[in-house]
């Protein structure tokens, strides 16, 4: 059997789609160029995972129209659970497959010039700003077939923009719901924190129904400009039939800080790439990732921090639990470029295997092209430590519960970092479900 790789949508379709959304010409041109490249570029090549038979390009529908939600009461139950109850102002975007279905932004943030809107509205109303950031200095169109395809067929996402000196201390939350079969979501998220600003962004990808076949292709580009600080948390929880490519990229300018807390809990085959580029002197990147793999899924997680500026600090923490017959590859790359003196690259990858058939691999890599730096890594792949189990059991805790405590503890670095209680609670529940069932 040969895998169909021809892109099922042509130039004419892309033109019609773009004009239907009232997009500026630069965006149409970007799409058309990308479409041409998508035909010729190869797939990405994640280390130690073969993806050439995966379905990233075949789907019946590029866009389905769904009804917006008139109020939060109409949200499906699993989505409601993600939203903080209470009277406090919500800064919330909900997207239903491809339809911007709900948006609220507090008057206070609006007055300060904060932009939080769906990507199509951003293209129409903040075209110049969007053009400055969309697939320029973060993720490039021509990295490989999936980035090109993403640009050509982009059909969802949000734009977050925080002006100079504005500190947003309440989280902005986005929920992306996948509810239709045989669709593709090309979701693009841009978070821009201008000089001296600060923002907390939390996103959830959630399938509300069983899915037999769907494609999700996510690109997130995060910019922490001079002395800005971005905290980016994500909980991905897509269904078994969804094949996902997710690329989350951060660019930190001088003294900029980007912190990631990623709970990657999807049940389908997944390629995840999270790269933080520390361009400016004194910039800082911290990336924490936790994963639970189960069933037969195959996943590849590459996390990288690349140091360009002097005195930059990069930390990678990855903890994965692998059970059933699942396969998870964890590649961690700390890279220090020539000239990035006094920089510090640290990483830790730990994989916990819960069954005989599970396959897990932690590959820590340090690439260092500068003498005056610090770097370190720790990696392990193993089972639940019998001595830890013995200790907990010696206090009367039954084996099953002791294992549960150890596993939850193992995944705590991301759980504890999630800034929205309801999302944290949901992540704990998802972990519980994935580990126990």
């Amino acid at each position, binding site marked *: 059997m040969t895998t169909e790789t021809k892109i099922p949508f042509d130039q004419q379709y892309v033109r019609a789609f773009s004009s239907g959304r009232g997009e500026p010409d630069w965006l149409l041109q970007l799409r058309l160029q990308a479409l041409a490249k998508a035909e010729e570029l190869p797939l990405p090549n994640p280390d130690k995972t073969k993806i050439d038979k995966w379905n990233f390009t075949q789907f019946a529908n590029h866009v389905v129209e769904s009804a917006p939600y008139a109020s939060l009461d109409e949200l499906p139950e699993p989505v409601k659970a993600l939203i903080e109850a209470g009277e406090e102002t919500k800064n919330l975007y909900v997207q239903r497959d491809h339809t911007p279905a709900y948006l609220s932004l507090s008057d206070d943030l609006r007055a300060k010039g904060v932009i939080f809107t769906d990507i199509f509205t951003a293209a129409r109303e903040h075209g110049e700003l969007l053009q400055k950031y969309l697939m320029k200095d973060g993720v490039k169109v021509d990295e490989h077939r999936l980035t090109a395809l993403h640009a050509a067929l982009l059909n969802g996402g949000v734009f977050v923009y925080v002006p100079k000196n504005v500190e947003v201390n309440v989280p902005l939350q986005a929920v992306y719901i996948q509810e239709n079969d045989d669709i593709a979501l090309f979701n693009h998220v841009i978070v821009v924190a201008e000089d001296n600003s600060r923002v907390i962004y939390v996103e959830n990808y959630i399938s509300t129904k069983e899915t037999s076949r769907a494609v999700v292709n996510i690109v997130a580009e995060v910019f922490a400009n001079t002395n800005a600080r971005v905290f980016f948390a994500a909980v991905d929880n897509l269904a078994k039939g969804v094949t996902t490519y997710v690329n989350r990229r951060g660019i930190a300018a001088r003294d900029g800080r980007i912190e990631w807390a990623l709970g990657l809990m999807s049940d389908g085959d997944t390629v995840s790439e999270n790269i933080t580029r520390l361009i400016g002197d004194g910039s800082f990147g911290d990336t924490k990732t936790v994963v639970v793999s189960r069933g037969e899924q195959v996943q590849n997680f590459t996390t990288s921090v690349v140091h360009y500026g002097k005195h930059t600090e990069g930390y990678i923490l990855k903890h994965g639990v692998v059970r059933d017959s699942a396969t998870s590859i964890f590649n961690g790359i700390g890279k220090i470029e020539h000239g990035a003196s006094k920089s510090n690259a640290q990483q830790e990858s730990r994989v916990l295997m819960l069954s005989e058939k599970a396959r897990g691999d932690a590959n820590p890599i340090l690439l260092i092209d500068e003498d005056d730096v610090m770097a370190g890594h720790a990696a392990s792949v193993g089972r639940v430590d019998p001595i830890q189990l*013995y200790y907990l059991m*010696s206090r009367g805790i039954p084996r099953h519960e002791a294992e549960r405590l150890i596993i939850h503890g193992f995944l705590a670095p991301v759980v504890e970092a999630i800034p929205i209680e309801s999302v944290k609670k949901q992540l704990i529940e998802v972990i519980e479900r994935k580990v126990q069932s």
Partner: protein
Amino acid sequence: MAVLTIKDLHVSVEGKEILKGVNLEVKGGEIHAIMGPNGTGKSTLSSAIMGHPKYEVTQGSITLDGQNVLEMEVDERARAGLFLAMQYPSEISGVTNADFLRAAINARLGEGNEISLMKFIRKLDEKMAFLEMNPDMAHRYLNEGFSGGEKKRNEILQLMMLEPKIAILDEIDSGLDIDALKIVAKGINEMRSSEFGCLIITHYQRLLNYITPDYVHVMMQGRIVKSGGPELAQRLEAEGYDWIKKELGIEDETVEQEA
């Protein structure tokens, strides 16, 4: 009143016999001290009683109030009333001290009888204050980054929270400065009652200056070779172990390299 009875206990580690016939009875209300040089099997005894996976009982019996301890899983032993304060407590990342303690208490009380959060916090605050522990320690991850002294104090905190019938303290005094030693002793003395029996394993006499044992046993070559009252510990402190070896004709008292 609880009774822990050990009869003719033989224990092997990785095929090597370490304990060669230990007999001992600890009753509620009694404090026993087991002393002896390094490598004579003291820690093996405590691990075998608790059920450490590495230790294999090849002969003999351990019962608690007539129940066969050796047939119980580690957690069942604990719920039956045994407690081991470990020489090297594990560090468990991501699990707070408080969450762990509550899980342990609730495991004892059983489903439907869980301790209320208020009652738990009150008890925890009270015991931590008694042991002069920083209240932050409740919310730190279990033993992670704790100093040696903090870990030992945390073991005693667990002892006071869980209120076992019989506690075994494995070298609870090693690595403690004198102030920490006094606090640990204070905790153990606070537990003293007719309902609580205790087996203290140590190779220093100094802890026994603060906790007066009812019985002192000396272990050599994987057996208890001599038993007596508190005066035995004092003589050991003054004269060392050589006189016992001489008296019993023992040349090499060890059976193992103790971990």
